[in-house]
């Protein structure tokens, strides 16, 4: 809905099979709803949990402690000269963002059934706004990591300028997957059970607890087909520097895959959204 001041008469035509012609202008018109829904998710998250913000600090810290213990101390994997906990933390940032965003966005449509069946707005707002909570968690974790790095006196250099690029890549990939899964979830409820599975496996298949340098060179390219490999390597490289040289093909694959998943996700979501109100 447009604001009160644009009195210009607009003609809206609704026809069978045409979909929403004003898809992108509608997205812009409903930007405030997007902000309010993100704000709601964040408010509710912190109101319901007694520990509130502490959760977004505790969860990654505990995981990092365990990973450092298992991979660093027990398995004695190499850490390229940085404290093992920092090595894990730098990878945990994108991983937590990806896993959380994928989880939230995939279930977001089912969690907002009443909105979808009673009100019109571009449905794409729902999965995107659900991810904002994870982005906030990400920022909190990032502050923690910077604190930890300052403590160990290994501060990032100019490569940090590439950091936003890899963050964007993580979001594109997570949202793209989220669009696919949330739309599929409306029609096939099985996907609700598949996602925790993907997240659990992904944590071990991606170089979170270890550096991807330990992968034998001949397997490296194959390993890089997991788009998170390039992203996680990129995070380590931009934050921790030259000890973690970038494996170019891995980054290329990540960029390529993320873009494809995101664009196809939007396309698929738009195709499916017409029937959301009828089946949800």
């Amino acid at each position, binding site marked *: *809905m447009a604001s009160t001041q644009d009195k210009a008469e607009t003609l809206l035509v*609704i026809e069978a099979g045409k979909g929403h012609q004003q898809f992108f202008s509608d997205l812009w018109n409903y930007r405030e709803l997007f902000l*309010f829904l993100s704000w709601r998710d964040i408010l*509710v998250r912190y109101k319901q949990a007694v520990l509130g913000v502490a959760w977004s600090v505790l969860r990654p810290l505990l995981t990092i402690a365990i990973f450092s213990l298992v991979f660093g101390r027990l398995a004695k994997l190499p850490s390229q000269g940085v404290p093992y906990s920092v090595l894990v933390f730098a990878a945990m940032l994108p991983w937590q963002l990806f896993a959380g965003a994928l989880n939230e966005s995939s279930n977001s449509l089912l969690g907002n059934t009443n909105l979808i069946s*009673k*009100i019109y707005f571009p449905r794409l707002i729902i999965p995107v706004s659900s991810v904002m909570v994870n982005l906030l968690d990400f920022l909190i974790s990032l502050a923690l990591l910077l604190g930890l790095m300052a403590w160990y006196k290994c501060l990032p250099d100019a490569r940090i300028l590439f950091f936003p690029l890899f963050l964007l890549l993580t979001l594109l990939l997570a949202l793209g997957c989220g669009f696919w899964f949330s739309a599929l979830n409306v029609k096939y409820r099985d996907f609700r059970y598949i996602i925790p599975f993907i997240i659990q496996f992904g944590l071990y298949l991606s170089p979170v607890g270890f550096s991807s340098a330990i992968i034998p060179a001949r397997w490296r390219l194959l390993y890089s087909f997991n788009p998170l490999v390039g992203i996680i390597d990129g995070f380590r490289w931009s934050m921790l520097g030259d000890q973690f040289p970038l494996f170019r093909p891995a980054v290329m694959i990540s960029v390529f895959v993320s873009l494809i998943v995101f664009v196809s996700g939007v396309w698929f979501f738009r195709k499916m959204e017409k029937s959301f109100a*009828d089946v949800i």
Partner: protein
Amino acid sequence: MEPIIRVANLGKKYLIRHQSRPRYETLRDTLAGGAKRLMQKTAASRREEFWALRDVSFEVKPGDRLGIIGRNGAGKTTLLKILSRITEPSAGRVEIRGRVASLLEVGTGFHPELTGRENIFLNGAILGMRRREIVRKFDEIVSFAEVEQFLDTPVKRYSSGMYVRLAFAVAAHLEPEILLVDEVLAVGDAAFQKKCLGKMGDMNQKEGRTILFVSHNMPALQTLCRQGLLLEKGTIRFSGDVNEAISTYVAQNDILSITPVASREDREGLGMVRIEAIEVKSNFGIATGHDLVVTASFRTIGKPVPINEFGMSIWSEHDIRLISLSTIMKGELSKIPDAGKVSCRIPQLPLVSGNYFLNFFVSSSNGIEDYLVHALKFFVEDSNFFASGKSVNPIWGAIAVSHQWSLE
């Protein structure tokens, strides 16, 4: 004047699958179904088409107040959902000139954990208001809802009345050119309902807004609307003046008489007294919780016999006897004339929405004189029985009883 809404040949088709199947599918079903389809090649015949709306065409002029009536399942809500773009039509075309706000439910998007203040902003945004618009109207909304002291209390601690008042107050302050309202006034106490109706009427008169209003509440429709659209099984049965629409609806709806009583010959009994006509009446439609009056005309044939009892029973569509009533059971009407009319009034009809049959009999001291099985078939409309906006779903039970809950 150019119409603000033009609807042409609008249709909405749903595909109904197996009745026992859930609305959503599981991947397994689709995969298994796909395999079966390959083998059987009969997939197409399994899906049944159902047209919730078909060939609906009408126009609404700016400033009109259109009441949409019809039985449950007539397509009223589907129509509003298409106009508000929640769902897509399967056929036809709609042209809308102006901003639309739809109110299909009170308090859509209210979150129980959030405070009244937070929910006003959230709900306002969901209904399409800008933030600064909400800020501007905030005080007005709060005083309309009468919840000043509870602004910073989570709405989960609100009483249901407060909740509804707050929710409606937000909606009432929308400023669209076209407002679509679905049965939401059914909630809240009578005084508040009146306040809301007044507010909607104001919006129309002072600001020339167009209102499309779906309701089962005939008095509210008569107060608010001038035009009426009567839907029946997805098509338009009547379009025109609201009072005419209501009377057409009430007439069509209440009595689905099978054969007129006067021409019924399949009667049981001695036949010395004859029931000539039976009618069922109710103010503003037969509905759960409304008073129901059954009136029968009778006369004795030939030599008068002393009539000593009238009785009737109400049966469900599945032929289960639900209610039996008689003058002797109640100990009423001892001196009955040879001919006349007899009425039985059931205050607050406790039957849930559905079709019912009425059997009626008259007896003399000789025995049953005239007994009409399925003298009438009538439909009981859903209503706001509990005044909470929730209706008594026929799936949950056959009778509606008033009751109170309390914590001890």
